[in-house]
C-alpha cells in the first residue's frame, strides 16, 4: 500500500496543466431561466420513473396537474364570464327584471344566457349598504366610516407620532361620536340628574385629593386612589350620558332603519372594541391565583365558547327581555350586540391568555422585584408585551367575528347578507340569476375585507417574529 503511494508520487509527470480559466458554462437548463423555473415548479414533480412506484406517482401527479389546470381555468372562466363578459351592465330603459330575461322568459337575451345582472345591484346598492337609513342623512354614516378609516390608517402607519394617543381616542371618543352621529343622540335622560351626578363625582374627586394630602386622617388617606377612581368613574359615565342626551339637532334614526354593510360594521367593530377590555379582564382572571376568580372566569369563557353563536343570538333575542326588569326594553340590534360582545369576549380572552402564557416568567418576577403592584406590573410590563405578541391572533379573531356578523340576519337584523337576502326577494327584479349576482357581490365585499385583514395579520406575524429573533 505504502509502496504504491510512493511510486505514484514519483511518477507525477502531469500530462496536462490548464493555463487559462475553464470557460464559463451556462447554468444547466433545469436550474435557470424559464425552462429551469418550469422544471422546478412543474415538471420535476412528475419526472421520476426510476421504479414502478415512482412512475405511478409521477403519472398520478401529471394527471392531477392536467385536471387541476383544466378545472381551475374552467372555474375562472365561468366566474369571469358570469361576472364580466356575458353580464348585463346597464338598464337604460328601466326595464328592471326584463333587462335580465332571456327570450324564453320574455326578455331580449339569448336563450340559455346565465350571467350577472348588475343593474339589480345598482338599484339595490343603497339598501345593501345602508338599509333603510334616510337618504338625506347618509352623510352621517359616511362621516363615521371616513373618520374610522382615517383613524385606523393613522394608527397603522408606523412612522406617525402620537399613535398611542390616537389609538386611545379611537377606542373611547370615536365610538361615542359614532353613536351620536348614527342614532342622532338626544336620548331622553333628564339633564338634572346628569348634572347632580356630575357634581357628586367632582366632589368625590376633590375628596380623594384631600385624602391624598392627609387632611382626612390616615385611614382615609390609604383609600385616596380608590376614592379618586370612583369619582372619575362617576364623572366619565355621566359625561358620556350627558353627551348622549345633548340635542345636536340631528334627526333621531331608529336602529330598525339601519341595515346592510352599516350593521355589519357596527356589530363587528362594537364586538371587537368591547371584547378587548372584557377579554383582558377575563384572561387575567383565568390566570389569577384567586380560586374564586379563576373558577368564575373559566366557567364564563368555556360556556360561551362551547355554544354556537346562533344559539347565543337566539338567547339574546328571546331570553334577554325576560331577564330584565319590567319596562326596560332593548331594541333588537342592542340585544344582538350584547350577545356578540359576550361571545367574542370569551374568544378574545383565550387569545390574550395565550399571549400572557408566552411571557417569560422572569418578566413577572422582575416586575415584582421592582416593587410594582399587581395592576402596575400588568399595565406597565406584562400586558404591553402580551398584547403585542397576540396582535395576529386578535386580528384573526376579528376576521372570524366579521364573518360571523352575518348570523344576525337569522334573528331578523338586516346586515349585509340579510339586506341582500331581502333584496333578492324583490319581485320587480325577479330573474333566475338574481340570487347568484347578489351572492357574488356580497362575497366580493367580504373577501376584500377579510383577505386584507388576514394579509395584515401575516405581515404583523412576520414583523414580530423578526423582532423577537436575537
Amino acid at each position, binding site marked *: 500500500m505504502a509502496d504504491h503511494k510512493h511510486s505514484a508520487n514519483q511518477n507525477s509527470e502531469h500530462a496536462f496543466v490548464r493555463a487559462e480559466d475553464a470557460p464559463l458554462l451556462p447554468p444547466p437548463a433545469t436550474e435557470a431561466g424559464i425552462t429551469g423555473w418550469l422544471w422546478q415548479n412543474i415538471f420535476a414533480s412528475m419526472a421520476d420513473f426510476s421504479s414502478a412506484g415512482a412512475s405511478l406517482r409521477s403519472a398520478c401527479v401529471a394527471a392531477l396537474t392536467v385536471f387541476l389546470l383544466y378545472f381551475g381555468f374552467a372555474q375562472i372562466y365561468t366566474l369571469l364570464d358570469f361576472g364580466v363578459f356575458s353580464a348585463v351592465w346597464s338598464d337604460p330603459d328601466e326595464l328592471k327584471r326584463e333587462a335580465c330575461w332571456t327570450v324564453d322568459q320574455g326578455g331580449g337575451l339569448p336563450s340559455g344566457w346565465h350571467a350577472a345582472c348588475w343593474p339589480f345591484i345598482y338599484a339595490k346598492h343603497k339598501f345593501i349598504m345602508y338599509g333603510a337609513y334616510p337618504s338625506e342623512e347618509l352623510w352621517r354614516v359616511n362621516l363615521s366610516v371616513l373618520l374610522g378609516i382615517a383613524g385606523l390608517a393613522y394608527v397603522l402607519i408606523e412612522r406617525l407620532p402620537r399613535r398611542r394617543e390616537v389609538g386611545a381616542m379611537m377606542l373611547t371618543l370615536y365610538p361615542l361620536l359614532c353613536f351620536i352621529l348614527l342614532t342622532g343622540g338626544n336620548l331622553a335622560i333628564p339633564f338634572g340628574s346628569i348634572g347632580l351626578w356630575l357634581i357628586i363625582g367632582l366632589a368625590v374627586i376633590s375628596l380623594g385629593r384631600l385624602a391624598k394630602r392627609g387632611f382626612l386622617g390616615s385611614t382615609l388617606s390609604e383609600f385616596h386612589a380608590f376614592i379618586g377612581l370612583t369619582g372619575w368613574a362617576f364623572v366619565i359615565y355621566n359625561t358620556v350620558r350627558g353627551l348622549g342626551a345633548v340635542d345636536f339637532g340631528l334627526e333621531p334614526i331608529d336602529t330598525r332603519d339601519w341595515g346592510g354593510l352599516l350593521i355589519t360594521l357596527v356589530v363587528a367593530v362594537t364586538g371587537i372594541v368591547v371584547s378587548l377590555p372584557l377579554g383582558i379582564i377575563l384572561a387575567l382572571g383565568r390566570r389569577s391565583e384567586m380560586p374564586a376568580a379563576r373558577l368564575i372566569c373559566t366557567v364564563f369563557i368555556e360556556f360561551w365558547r*362551547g355554544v354556537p353563536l346562533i344559539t347565543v343570538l337566539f338567547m339574546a333575542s328571546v331570553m334577554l327581555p325576560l331577564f330584565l326588569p319590567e319596562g326596560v326594553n332593548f331594541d333588537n340590534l342592542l340585544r344582538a350586540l350584547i350577545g356578540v360582545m359576550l361571545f367574542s369576549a370569551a374568544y378574545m380572552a383565550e387569545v390574550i391568555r395565550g399571549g400572557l402564557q408566552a411571557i417569560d416568567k422572569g418578566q413577572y418576577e422582575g416586575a415584582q422585584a421592582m416593587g410594582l403592584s399587581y395592576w402596575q406590573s400588568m399595565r406597565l410590563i406584562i400586558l404591553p408585551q402580551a398584547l403585542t405578541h397576540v396582535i395576529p391572533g386578535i386580528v384573526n379573531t376579528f376576521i372570524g367575528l366579521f364573518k360571523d356578523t352575518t348570523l344576525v340576519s337569522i334573528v331578523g337584523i338586516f346586515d349585509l347578507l340579510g339586506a341582500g337576502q331581502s333584496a333578492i326577494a324583490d319581485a320587480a327584479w325577479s330573474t*333566475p340569476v338574481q*340570487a347568484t349576482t347578489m351572492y357574488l357581490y356580497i362575497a366580493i365585499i*367580504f373577501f376584500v375585507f377579510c383577505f386584507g385583514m388576514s394579509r395584515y395579520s401575516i405581515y404583523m406575524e412576520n414583523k414580530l417574529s423578526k423582532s423577537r429573533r436575537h
Partner: protein
Amino acid sequence: MSFSAFFYDKRLRSVLFQALLVLSIAFGFFWLVENTVSNLSDQGKSVGFSFLSQTAGFQISSTLGTWLMKYEVGRSTYLDVYFIGIINTFVVAVLGILAAAVLGFSIGIMRLSHNLVIRGFATVYVEMLRNIPLLLQLFFWYFAVLRSLPSRREQTELFSGIAGINITGLYLPAPIAQSGFMIVILVFIMAIIGAVMLSKWATKRQCKTGRTFPAFWAGLGLIVGTPLVAFLALGSPLDWSFPEFKYTGPLLRRGFQSGTGMVIVPELIAVWLALSLYTAAFIAEIVRAGILAVAKGQTEASYSLGLRPGITLRLIVIPQALRVIIPPLTSQFLNLTKNSSLAVAIAYPELVSIFAGTALNQVGKEIEMIAMMMTVYLTFSLLTAAFMNWFNARVKLVER
C-alpha cells in the same frame, strides 16, 4: 395590628376581593332570576318540563331523525322533536367531519407540493373559502346552485337510473335488511376485532423475532372478505328498494313516488357541502402547519438510516406532525358541529331549527328550551375538551 397593615395584607385582600366578587355575582344572578320570575308570572307562564310530553303538531321533512324516531304529526311528542333535532345535527356533523377531514388533508398536502399548479390551486381554494362567510356559502349552495336542479316533475338520472336527483332531493336505493342480515353484521364486527388482534400479534412477533407480517393487507382481507363470504353464503339477505320515477300519468302524480328508495333532502346536501368545503380550508392550513412543524433533520436522519420515503413519512413525519395537528383539528371538528346550527337559515330540521325555532314558537317555553338546546352543544364541547386533554397527555413529549 394597625389598619394599614391589615389593608395591605395580601392574603386578606385576596379573600376580601373574592368574597366581594362571589357576592356580586350571586346578587346579579339573583336579580336576573327575580326579574325572570316576575316577568313570567306577568305573562301567566309557568316553569317546567311538562311540555315535553305534549304532542307536536307540525310537519318535519323526512330525514334520518324522523325515520329513527318514527315521527308522526299529532302522535309524537316534543321530546321526540328534541331527539330528532339531536340526531339530525349529529348526521350533519359526522358527514361533514368525514368529508372535511379527507378534503382538508388532501388540500393541506397539496399546498406543500413542489408543483406550482397543485400548490396554486390549493392556495386559491384556501384563501377563497376561508374569507367568505359560511352563511353566504350556505345560501349560495342552497339558493343558487341547488335551486337550478330539475323541478319536482323532472329528474336527472344518476348511475343509469338507479338513483336520481331533482329539486326535492337526491333519491338513492334504500337497503332493506332481510332475516339473516344481522349475522353478516355480527361477522363484520368480529372481523374487525380479529383484525385488531392480528395487528397486535404481528407487532409483538416483529418485536420478538424481527420477522414482519403483512398485517394491514391481511386485516383488510379479513374485514372485507369474511362478511362477504357470510353474505353470499346466507344467500344475499339484503333487498334494495329502488326509487321509482313516473314520467307519465296525471301531472300531479309524476315525479318520484313516495315510499320507494330513500331521499336525501336538498337542505342536507347544501349544509353538508357548505360545512365540509368551508372547514376543509381551515383543516388544510392546520395540516400544512403541522407538517412544516416537523424539523427537516428528522426526515434527513431517517433517510440516512436507510428508511424509504414512504416509511419515513409513515413512521417519522406523520406521528410527529399529528401531535401538532390533532388539537386544532379537534377544535375545527367542534367548530363544524357548532356551525351546523347555521342550517336553521335554510330550514334543515336540526336542533336549532326545529326545537328552538318551530317548537319554541308553538310552546313558548323560552328558558327551558334554549337551556336544553345549549346543553347539547355544551356536552359536545366538553366531551371534545375531555378527549383533547386525554390525547395531549398521551402524546406529550416526555422530556428527560
